[in-house]
């Protein structure tokens, strides 16, 4: 069974902020959707189906919000699906949307992921005590910090690596007009001087809590031809993998599901040396130490050596394999949208539309998202070449 080739032909993002008090939820989504449609040179009438993604409904206190949003997002009268795979949701939503096109069922699919978490409090929503359990960890940071410690121990990485990643991503964000955190004074030293929140993770090594939405239009080969778009981002490969949250001898710092997903992705796209064949990557780094961890998990570096890529400047915007050119999750984090933002930013790179944070000549990029306790992974490779 051959897939219909599919490509991203439009991307739209909102300005990510701690609180988007200037808009309602419909308004937030429309900001991203309207931009994506304009970028794709389409109207709502051209869209065949809508795929919505977001993380737990508890964040906004609306159950299945896509139902009340149907009119606002142009889904009425059309098929609409709502994906929820925890933090990786933005990525898996994009993959579901791509599948609708690749299956031959639809020609043009609008996909949007969002979170308006300022309506409640993200820490609260992630830390609600479950009866009969002990509320020990303090939100997501408290959950991941012990595994960061494991990684540092296992790899022998120098302790400033986390600060290097944070400084890099926050400075990249200055070149991204949509980014939430845009502080021009971030340096390795300033990060190291920031408060340790969950030892060993520091305040400045931590993602913000943001409101925002990201949307894309994915089109079939035929629809791309019929459009005026000359620079589509062809979806060359995609994968999702999950493993249980906790099981005996689970590797939390280099999860099997992530390694398996990456291996499948490279195999299916014919990539034998991702380090050289991928031009740039947008990967889900909510706590800065995840950059070296994921570089190993993805196969860009051998186990225990991911931190060297950071240290040597390989992952810098001007480096050999730039990572998180947009500023990444460390600079903007509407939880339900962050995965899709990675996928969309990867598409923008190969479309040549990444503006100031464009990597020259990027022809093949990786979008990556993870969720839960590092147990859900969604990834795709986009490129200027049709698969």
């Amino acid at each position, binding site marked *: 069974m051959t897939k219909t080739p599919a490509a991203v032909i439009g991307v739209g993002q909102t300005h990510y902020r701690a609180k988007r008090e200037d808009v*309602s939820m419909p308004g937030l989504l429309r900001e991203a959707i309207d931009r994506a449609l304009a970028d794709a040179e389409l109207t709502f009438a051209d869209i065949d189906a809508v795929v919505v993604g977001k993380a737990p409904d508890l964040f906004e206190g609306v159950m299945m919000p896509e*139902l009340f949003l149907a009119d606002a997002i142009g889904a009425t009268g059309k098929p609409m699906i709502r*994906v929820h795979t925890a933090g990786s949701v933005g990525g898996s939503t994009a993959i579901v949307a791509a599948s609708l096109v690749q299956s031959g069922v639809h020609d043009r699919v609008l996909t949007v992921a969002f979170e308006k978490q300022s309506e409640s409090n993200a820490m609260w929503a992630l830390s609600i005590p479950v009866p009969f359990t002990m509320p020990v960890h303090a939100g997501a940071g408290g959950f991941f910090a012990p595994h960061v410690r494991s990684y540092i121990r296992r790899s022998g990485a120098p302790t400033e690596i986390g600060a290097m990643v944070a400084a890099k991503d926050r400075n990249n964000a200055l070149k991204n007009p949509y980014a939430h955190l845009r502080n021009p004074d971030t340096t390795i030293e300033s990060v190291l001087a920031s408060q340790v929140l969950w030892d060993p993770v520091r305040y400045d090594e931590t993602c913000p809590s943001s409101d925002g939405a990201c949307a894309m239009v994915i089109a079939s080969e035929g629809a791309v031809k019929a459009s005026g778009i000359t620079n589509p981002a062809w979806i060359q490969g995609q994968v999702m993998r999950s493993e249980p949250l906790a099981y005996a001898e689970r590797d939390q710092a280099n999860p099997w599901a992530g390694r*398996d997903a990456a291996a499948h992705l490279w195999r299916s796209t014919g990539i034998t040396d991702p380090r050289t064949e991928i031009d740039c990557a947008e990967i889900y780094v909510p706590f800065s130490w995840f950059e070296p961890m994921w570089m190993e998990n993805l196969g860009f570096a051998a186990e225990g050596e991911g931190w060297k890529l950071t240290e040597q400047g390989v992952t810098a915007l001007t480096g050999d394999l730039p990572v998180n050119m947009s500023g990444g999750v460390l600079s903007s984090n509407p939880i339900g949208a962050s995965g899709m933002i990675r996928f969309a930013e990867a598409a923008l790179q190969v479309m040549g539309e990444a503006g100031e944070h464009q990597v020259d000549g990027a022809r093949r990029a990786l979008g990556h998202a993870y969720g839960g306790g590092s147990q859900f992974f969604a990834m795709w490779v986009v490129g200027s070449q049709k698969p």
Partner: protein
Amino acid sequence: MRDVAVVGFAQRQMREFDGSPNCIELLVPLLQELWEQTGWTKEDIGFWCSGSSDYLAGRSFSFVTAIDALGAVPPISESHVEMDAAWALYEAWIKIQTGEADTALVYGFGKSSASTLRRTLALQLDPYTLTPLWPDTVSIAGMQARLGIEQGVWSEKEMAEVAARSRTNATGNEHAIRRGETTIDDVLAQELLADPLRRWDCAPVTDGAAAIVIAATDTLPRTSPAIRPAVITGIAHCVDSPSLGLRDLTRSPSAERAGAAAGGASVGLADVTVAELHAPFSHQELILRRELGLGDDVRINPSGGALGGNPMFSAGLIRIGEAARRIWSGEADKVLAHATSGAALQQNLVCVMASGQARRPEER
């Protein structure tokens, strides 16, 4: 398009499930049943997809813990929709169409009894203008029912006929939680629960879980000749406006569209002989029959339908399973299953299945 068939189905329903909100205790035996039905193991499944809602039982990420029931080591290709598992089946069907998987296991679960379901579902409405009034699902359905009665689109007697027939049919369904030989007069003799609705016009609050295995027929192994695969000939879904004032509540355009798309342009739904319709309220069955163009000769809800048991987030999937069973048993050659979501039939999915022989079997 690849032919994809429903080859396994298991369900559990009860008034109150005395167990955890992620329903692992229900899912584990359900999966066991599926392995027994298909002769497969978890290694034979190419894609897993579930449907559930965090809000139902107040546990964020409840679907995450449910994954323990699958034995997801080595890692699996898996996804989740915050919708009835019928839509998870749709996502799985799409996955098979892309060729990324040949088989899929779909499951849904929900513990509605953990809270006051009809109140919790008020959270599905517009958060600015409606939820603050906490309109419950029964009241919304009641308003819809009255509109139809007063406009002469349907009558209380027709609603009672649906309720009576559903309850009576459910006597033959070991999984139904509300069942009994019932006449129209029995129903009409009931007090009104939420004028104009009677208790038996409304689905009972039900806990439960269900799971289905689907497989592309072009890779089906040699199966027992006792199973006539129920091949999905069409599956489609659609959503209407959320505005209860803008919509004509006596109609469901999204159900009509989904039915037309699933039926296909040339054949339509004309030769469907059995339909399992997910109608949590008796008048909604009348709406669906009309929107889908199902004549009097079509057997509706032989299982008793949602009025016999409505486990949230698996009830739609169960309609698909119940309809498929009629093909397996030889009772029918073409069946229709329907699932709904949102207030007053806002979102609808239709799945049409026909009996089909497995293609040339491959050795495993």
